[in-house]
């Protein structure tokens, strides 16, 4: 078996055994959900209902507001309590729509399956937009926008990202095991719109049962290939996937389009299928709750459910709670407030207790070059860090800090525990500020 891979990367313990065996479980909704207006890359949505209005599951409650924006739908039935300033999982406080849940009326989505048959590409893109679908692997880029690549770019390869390389997280894995048929139908819809020469479903070698499952059901789709990738972080990053599948690099500062590829996540394919064939908007998603909790789980949760509610649903914290992370250990963001809500891009919640959180000292760079070896973007993290420490942002930019995808590989291997990624995030922000 030939495993596909890319240059650089690291091998953290994958810890997928924690939540990997837990089937997806629908939770009972919390008492209150908070739906931030800003859940996607682009302009925040605009509320279209008034305080005290009754809402239903899947009802549109905010509309898209500009070119790069999507509408927002209620994830529960209940009463709209107004706009509040609420902690946001990506930092700070942002405006969120507060909804008091009526558990009686909050039911599963029910609708007859419709045929895709006669729908034109335009119709499909419109449905995808109106259903509020965004990339569900974390970046939350509006999918309808991505589905319309510039006409001069020929897409030869459609890559469906099932790599889920981030340790601990198992949401996509469970979806592949449990919802394989539906995912393939979703992929087929995306294929119709994009019209590529080849379709790849990329899965890492630590999920062989998912590979088997996808192979089994994809036999009825002759143009679909399952590509097995070496288990290595960050295999599931767009540019690294393109490099592994096409053996061609995405040009610096470019997008996968520029290398003739289109990458979409497993969860997004499923959301597209449900939107097109069941008119179901994106209002719930699978979230892995794992780490130091009693019962690591994969929950199907209404968007807007507070993290602390889910932590309790997963049996509570083992030991003293130290860190709540939105996402996985490598790229996730540590939270200030445990009550932040799940948003469309929340892939998982990782809990770390006192024993697990590192609080050692940061030493000086010993020039071991480990960071240079692992950087998948072929940067020189230590050198960039040095220029940032002396506030020489021009030099940092020259050395390519803007290409850093914040995968965290360098900080993971650094024996001196230098917070390299945080420095790079800071530098990128400074550079952008100075450009203005």
């Amino acid at each position: 078996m030939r495993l596909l891979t890319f240059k650089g990367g690291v091998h953290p313990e994958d810890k997928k055994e924690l939540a990997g065996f837990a089937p997806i479980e629908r939770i009972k909704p919390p008492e209150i959900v908070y739906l931030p207006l800003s859940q996607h890359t682009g302009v925040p949505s605009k509320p279209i209902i008034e305080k005290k209005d009754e809402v239903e599951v899947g009802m549109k409650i905010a509309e898209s507001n500009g070119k790069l924006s999507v509408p927002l739908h209620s994830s529960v039935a209940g009463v709209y309590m107004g706009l509040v300033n609420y902690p946001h999982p990506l930092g700070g406080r942002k405006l969120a729509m507060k909804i008091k849940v009526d558990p009686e009326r909050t039911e599963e989505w029910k609708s007859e399956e419709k045929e895709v048959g006669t729908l034109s590409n335009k119709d499909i893109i419109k449905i995808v937009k109106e259903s509020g679908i965004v990339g569900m692997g974390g970046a939350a880029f509006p999918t309808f926008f991505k589905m319309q690549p510039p006409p001069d770019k020929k897409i030869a390869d459609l890559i469906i990202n099932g790599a889920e390389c981030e340790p601990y997280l198992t949401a996509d894995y469970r979806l592949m095991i449990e919802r394989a048929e539906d995912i393939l139908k979703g992929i087929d819809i995306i294929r119709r719109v994009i019209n590529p020469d080849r379709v790849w479903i990329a899965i890492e070698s630590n999920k062989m049962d998912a590979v088997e499952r996808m192979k089994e059901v994809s036999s009825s789709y002759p143009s679909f290939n399952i590509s097995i990738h070496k288990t290595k972080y960050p295999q599931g990053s767009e540019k690294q996937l393109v490099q592994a599948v096409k053996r061609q690099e995405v040009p610096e500062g470019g997008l996968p389009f520029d290398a003739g590829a289109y990458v979409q996540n497993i969860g997004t394919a499923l959301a597209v299928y449900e939107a097109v064939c069941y008119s179901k908007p994106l209002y719930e998603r699978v979230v892995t709750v794992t780490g130091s909790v009693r019962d690591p789980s994969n929950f199907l949760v209404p968007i807007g459910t507070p993290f602390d509610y889910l932590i309790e649903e997963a049996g509570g914290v083992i030991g003293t709670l130290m860190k709540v992370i939105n996402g996985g250990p490598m790229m996730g963001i540590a939270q200030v407030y445990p009550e932040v809500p799940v948003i469309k891009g929340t892939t998982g919640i990782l809990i770390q207790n006192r024993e697990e959180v590192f609080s050692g000292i940061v030493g000086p760079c010993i020039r071991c070059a480990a960071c240079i070896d692992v950087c998948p973007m072929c940067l020189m993290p230590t050198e960039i860090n040095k220029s940032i420490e002396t506030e020489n942002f021009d030099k940092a930019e020259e050395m390519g800090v803007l290409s850093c995808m914040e995968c965290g590989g360098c900080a993971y291997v650094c024996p001196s525990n230098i917070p390299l990624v945080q420095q790079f995030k800071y530098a990128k922000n400074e550079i952008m500020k100075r450009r203005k």
Partner: protein
Amino acid sequence: MASILIPVGILGGIALFFGIFLVISAEKFKVTMDERVEKLIDVLPGIDCGACGAPGCSAFAEGVTKGEYPVNGCKAGGEEVATAVAEIMGVEAEVGGEEVAVLRCLGGTDVAKRVADYNGIKTCAALHLLGGDKGCQYGCLGLNDCVEACPFDALVMGEDGLPYVIEERCTACGVCVGTCPRELFEIISKKQDIYLACRSYDDAKTVKQVCSRGCIGCSLCTRVTLGETVTMDGNLASVHWDKIDDNSILKPALEKCPTKTYIKRSELRGFKNA
């Protein structure tokens, strides 16, 4: 014997020639330098800091004689230099810088809750990017960016985690205003004493959860002050300094503000300064 006289004569002649030449050219090409400039250069600090806007102290001295810079333009020199400069220029100096920096946050460790432990890069700029470790998303992060940036050592970090302005040293250069990622410094006239020490736009409920001295946006201060001197900017009161000639206009606000967010610069200074 005579042979030694020849070179001596030639060299002496050359020396005499250059001597006369130099004397003549010095007279002829004399640069009339304002004697005041020399005197000024003597009294200026001579550190060429550039805070006055001139490329250096001597350029500033020249500029002052030509009226390009005000007599109290030397930021680094403070009162003493301003008086000396004024004396040389023969004018009455407005002694003392007219302006000073104030910190618009009262959320010290005992006042505003810290809600998370942070162990990343120890600068305010980096912490601000992550949303901060304080409940208040507008308040001071206390990691010394401003203290390190102030070119005149006019800021010290207090025990309560807030920087304090040493007014004798502050030259109102404004470096701290541009440095603080949360934009907590404001330059105000030294004539003003009472000011609003908060920059939070959060609503009352949020502010109360995170800080006991933050502006809750009740708008009481706009009602007890005269005219349009204080207005509301969303959930935050906004003081219009251009309309306040007499600082006592703000006295009712100082007395009535339920969260005591208005404070007196003079009291803060007397209390905290080293």
